[in-house]
């Protein structure tokens, strides 16, 4: 049996750069930063006082009563999924619900609900704790809400692999369609943990940038002055569809999901393998799985979070597994690090780079690290044909995911 081709027929996102895919992509190509100061009262006591917060609040999109029972990470997953679903034109298309699945994950889940309800428990007692608490904080909440929204009955899956979640959710969607368990999968990631506790936790690890006086310059992958990642919030969702299914209904197709590679380091709970061994294998597997020639993969949307160690290990891994020819982007320089949503948002950026023949810029790369030995579209977007491209996502726990997308 030949393996079915899988394509992307819908995109949705709500990010620090815009409330949808078009506005996010426009801002990204223009090189705009979504990072700003945290003006909340609680931020004053934190070592990190910057973040990339949503450009459009969920309350501008969903009604008040609906939002009462949604964690912020669920609300934005739902918003991105609604956009992707509408974009794919599948509503009313006669798609069998038992051939429709969901794969939407989060790195951290409903932590802000947990913390807010704990405040209520402490202040007012158990009877005042919201009856919506559990469905709001459960890690499968975003996937389940998306499944209800689109009417998916072939299974609702919630990947959790830290900052690799969004990419791994897409890889799972690819597997589901290839194995014949569904014809369409709504896949992506979501994250909303701009709250003092997660920030304090990451800051205690010394993983975050403390460039509080220059928020827009804080996320600077591969630059010598990089001092950690900038927390971002947002959601990205893709509609994956069996290629012949999409063709039969005359759907608009953005790109092909050509291959995925997933590995684990078995090395350290937070540090990447010191030679990038797991990343090298993930990239190699993705390329092999895609059947695409390395020289055609001319662009990489890198994981590049702006941390001292990880950024350079990825460069070494790319040189070994792919070669010295790709043009790189680190779009986290603009969006911050969306953790569990990063791999989904960056897959969308990778797909749009293919569609438009535009590699988005990496801003703030003013003083490149000497170990940066690959070409980066620094400061400005670069126009170039992109027949195929790679997206990397790596997560705490030693998760490595690489995805290859191609033109149709």
């Amino acid at each position: 049996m030949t393996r079915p081709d899988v394509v992307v027929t819908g995109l949705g996102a709500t990010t620090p750069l815009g409330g949808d895919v078009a506005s996010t992509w426009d801002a990204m190509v223009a090189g705009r930063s979504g990072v700003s100061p945290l003006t909340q009262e609680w931020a004053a006591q934190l070592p990190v006082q910057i973040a990339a917060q949503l450009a459009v609040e969920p309350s501008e999109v969903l009604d008040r009563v609906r939002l009462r029972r949604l964690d912020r990470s669920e609300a934005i997953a739902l918003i991105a999924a609604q956009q992707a679903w509408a974009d794919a034109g599948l509503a009313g298309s006669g798609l069998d619900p038992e051939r429709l699945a969901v794969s939407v994950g989060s790195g951290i889940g409903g932590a802000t609900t947990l913390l807010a309800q704990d405040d209520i428990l402490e202040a007012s007692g158990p009877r005042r704790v919201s009856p919506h608490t559990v469905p709001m904080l459960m890690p499968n909440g975003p996937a389940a809400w998306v499944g209800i929204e689109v009417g998916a009955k072939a299974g609702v899956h919630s990947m959790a692999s830290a900052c690799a979640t969004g990419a791994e959710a897409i890889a799972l969607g690819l597997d589901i369609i290839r194995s014949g368990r569904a014809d369409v999968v709504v896949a992506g990631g979501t994250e909303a943990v701009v709250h003092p506790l997660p920030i304090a936790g990451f800051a205690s690890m010394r993983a975050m940038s403390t460039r509080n006086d220059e928020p827009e310059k804080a996320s600077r992958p591969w630059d010598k002055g990089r001092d950690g990642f900038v927390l971002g919030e947002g959601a990205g969702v893709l509609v994956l569809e069996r290629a012949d299914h999409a063709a039969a209904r005359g759907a608009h197709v953005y790109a092909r999901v050509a291959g995925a590679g997933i590995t684990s380091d078995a090395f350290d709970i937070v540090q990447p393998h010191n030679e990038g061994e797991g990343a090298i294998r993930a990239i190699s597997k993705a390329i092999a799985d895609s059947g695409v020639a390395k020289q055609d993969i001319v662009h990489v949307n890198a994981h590049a979070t702006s941390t001292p160690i990880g950024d350079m290990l990825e460069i070494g891994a790319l040189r070994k597994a792919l070669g010295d020819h790709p043009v790189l982007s680190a779009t986290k320089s603009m969006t911050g690090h969306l953790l569990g949503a990063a791999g989904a948002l960056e897959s969308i950026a990778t797909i749009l780079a293919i569609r438009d023949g535009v590699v988005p810029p990496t801003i703030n790369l003013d003083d490149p690290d000497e170990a940066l030995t690959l070409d980066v579209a620094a400061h400005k977007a670069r126009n170039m044909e992109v027949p195929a491209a790679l997206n990397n996502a790596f997560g705490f726990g030693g998760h490595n995911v690489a995805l290859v997308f191609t033109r149709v």
Partner: protein
Amino acid sequence: MTREEITAGLAEILEEVAGVNPDDVAEGKSFTDDLDVDSLSMVEVVVAAEEKFGVKIPDNEVQNLKTVGDAVSYIEAQS
């Protein structure tokens, strides 16, 4: 407090918690069948009503409160 005042108070809570149009709230209306209040929202309504009217509504009473009128009668009797 009159039955009308209690009904108006419940209507405010139902609008806040479940988005029910206050004009739809009347003594004869069923919470679940007419006003679409699901079980989790009903818990919120009960807790908010306890606070607003200064009464206790034990869980084993809640199942007897099928309609707005049932709730008004219970609150009227307790307050």
